[in-house]
């Protein structure tokens, strides 16, 4: 009996193991508070809930452990959790790939529409019949699952529309990951129908998608990369500013020095008159004073900068 149970949950189990790995990595590294990151965090939470409810569901309905009387609650919980997962994933896809820098208002509107639709579907599902297939592979069945399929049909449509309509908004890794998920889904579905493959590959995909998202968009390297780009831009800007300042100082000093040397050359001319000689000396003295002012300005600026730093 346990072996037959293992048949069904082995695939979600292996994906869940890798998912936990990603989860640990995600929370042990630097995280950002962007809207996509916030939605991703909710998606991670719902992935854990969905997978754990599935495991509980199997144990409960198959009678291995036996949660008598709680089977219905677990089964409905699984449906709700999976539907919420699908809505959150749709929300993520729309917010990240289909909208260009969405405003808070836009995000709120999409969120309300998706989750209202979700709740309505779940309410409809609650009034529909739920079947338990004790001691068989499919633990949950019946008409109550139809709203869940509708929800996934909507998510699937959004998923397919993303690369078709907004492929420019997706980078190369995101496009590859997006295609990979689709390929895995197709392979598993084809295999399922041709070999009567008795596995819950639905939950497997639910665990795989956050892994793919981590690799393509949510790993901190992507956001660190953006921060790095900005830092580099800041550095370049500051460097240009500093160099311009130094160039200007250099120009001012040499300009003054050029004038001083000109007057010095005239001063050293043996044929210069006494009056001109005295005038040249005064010119030289005045220009030297100007040079002193330039140096004082450098020192003054530094004192002001230091004061600013202390105030900070």
């Amino acid at each position: 009996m346990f072996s037959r149970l293992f048949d069904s949950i082995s695939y979600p189990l292996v994906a869940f193991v890798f998912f936990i790995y990603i989860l640990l990595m995600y929370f042990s590294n630097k995280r950002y508070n962007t809207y996509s990151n916030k939605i991703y965090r909710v998606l991670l939470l719902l992935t854990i809930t969905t997978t754990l409810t599935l495991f509980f569901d199997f144990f409960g309905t198959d009678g291995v452990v036996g949660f008598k009387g709680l089977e219905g609650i677990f089964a409905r919980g699984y449906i709700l959790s999976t539907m919420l997962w699908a809505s959150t994933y749709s929300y993520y896809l729309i917010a990240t790939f289909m909208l260009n820098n969405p405003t808070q208002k836009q995000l709120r509107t999409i969120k309300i529409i998706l989750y209202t639709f979700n709740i309505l579907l779940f309410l409809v599902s609650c009034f529909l019949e739920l079947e338990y297939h004790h001691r068989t592979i499919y633990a949950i069945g019946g008409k109550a699952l139809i709203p869940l399929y509708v929800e996934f049909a909507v998510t699937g449509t959004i998923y397919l529309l993303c690369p078709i309509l907004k492929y420019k908004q997706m980078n190369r890794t995101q496009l590859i990951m997006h295609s990979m998920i689709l390929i895995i889904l197709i392979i598993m579905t084809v295999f399922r129908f041709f070999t009567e493959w008795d596995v819950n590959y639905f939950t497997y995909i639910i665990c795989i998608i956050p892994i793919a998202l981590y690799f393509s968009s949510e790993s901190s390297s992507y956001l660190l990369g953006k921060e790095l780009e900005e830092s580099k831009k800041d550095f370049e800007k500051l460097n240009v500013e500093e160099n311009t300042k130094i160039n200007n100082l250099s120009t001012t000093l040499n300009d003054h020095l050029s004038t001083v040397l000109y007057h010095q050359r005239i001063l050293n001319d043996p044929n210069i008159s006494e009056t001109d000689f005295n005038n040249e000396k005064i010119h030289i003295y005045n220009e030297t004073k100007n040079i002193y002012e330039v140096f004082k300005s450098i020192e003054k600026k530094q004192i002001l900068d230091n004061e600013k730093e202390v105030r900070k």
Partner: protein
Amino acid sequence: MEELVMRDLLVGLAFTIGTFFVLLLLYFVYYFQDRRTGIKADLYRYAIIINAILIISELISSFLLYDKLSPVLGEILLKFHWYTGVMYFYTFYFYADAHLKNINEVDKKEFMFKRKEAKIINIITLAFTIAFCVIQFKDLDYHALSYLPGWPAYIVFTYAVIIVMVTFFKYIKKKNKTKNEVKFVLLFLCVPTIDLALQIVWLNVAFSPTFMAFLLMGCYFLLENPDLYVAQELEETKKALEYTSVHKEYILSLKAQVTNNKILSINQNLYNAISNNDRESSKNDVNNNLTNLVDVIYGMQSVFNTLTIDEDHTKTFEYEYNTKTLLNKLYFYSLNKIKNKNIKLSFEIDPFLPISLYGDENIIFQTLSTCLSTAIDNTNVGKVTLKLRCNFVNNRVLLKFDVSDTSNGLDENIVNKINSDTINDAEIPMIENYYISKKYLSFINGTYVISSNIGAGNNVTINFEQKIINQSKIGDMTFDGVNYNINIANRKILIVDNNSSELKYLLNKYNNINYEVVNNFEECINKIKLDETITTILLNPTIDLTNENMAKTLKSIMPVHQGVSNKVIAILANTVSDTRKKYIEEGYDSFIEKPFNEYDLNELLNKI
């Protein structure tokens, strides 16, 4: 029955198939990202490829063996699959070794085959390989799936245990373990152990490919993840930002503070000098003080240049220059600095020095002038010598300068500090001039070594390479004055600058040079249209800061002369290499700097 076996097969391979798809994601993300180079990255890449082969060969062999579809091929493939386990751990041994020893840039053959411990591992691997090939799988039961099929599998597991244990002991022996190394070794120890335990308990479920993939993913997150390197680069960029804002300001203000006192004193002395009624003595005092002023400002300009050239040296500016002019400039600069001191100046130049070289002349002049200036400052009596020797390599020349003096010498600690590779900000004021020269040389990949004997003097040795443009030799170097007999009276020079008094003064010394001065760019254009004899324009680019195309505009409207090319030369008032580069890129043919050096001007006039 058949259906059940197929289902059992799929369940047995559930972990492998499930892992395969997860790994596909890792493969794609790893191969489509910027990967590092070096032995660590290479070995990780090999491990990924081996793991992929391990999974695929297991899947194919299992399906081939299923219900005896193709038992012979299936068995060969199964054998191959298990051997990939040996290859996986073999690769992982070197991968772990490279990390524990922190080796990256190393010859792969040397690292994997020629070292003593590598040879031992290779012999062990060879022994296990032979044993693995000789011993066959025994009576494979195609209906009772087992993923631990007999002795060859045990051989692979034994090999894995040996590799893990050797790595673990090497890790224990290692001092100063990093956090990531602890995590990595724990992973390397725990993952195969759990795998082995589970595999023994559940013989009909394939766990190994999953755990091997798990190990690879762990390495990705701990060691190969670009996050780690992006974070490191971010840290470095932030440090560079801090360097630019704090270090540059610090050095600048430090220099300004020191220089302020000197200029204040020069100012005071000049005031006394102009109050002096004796004409000759007043003139001498003014001249002496102005020599000091030039020194101070040159020192400041050196600091400016040091600060504007980036660490990656992209702001150096190389061009063809005349070695004779450079040495002449250095000689007369030094002579002017010695003035009334009782010092003999000697330049001993290798007669084989090529006449024309290619490099950043500005940096070379400033390095050598700083060295000579420091030597003259330190010496009161005796001699300051500059020796230049050349070594030729293909079309390049290695220039070896020795600047020696007869000063009192430097303390050993100071000498060590100057020769040291790491000088902190607080130590810079103590060895400022040496620091600047050394820093300059680093921009042109030169070396700087100082030696000193207390009571006997200092010797600075400078080496750097330059590209040869003209092979003609300089011969016996003589230091001549400026030649004022340049005859270009049939052409006219137009000066466009609002502060051209020094230049006019210097040009007046020439007998056959025609020039005219205008104060702005518009006047300049009108002048060119009216006067066809103008072939050279000396233009200060800062005269119109909004117009970056002045040189190109002028060249396009200047009339064409037969046998003479029109030239637009930038009058620059700063010594920063980057500025020179910028103006040449904007279309200027050459440049000349304020305050004007008579030798530079002479060379320029000779060329036009």
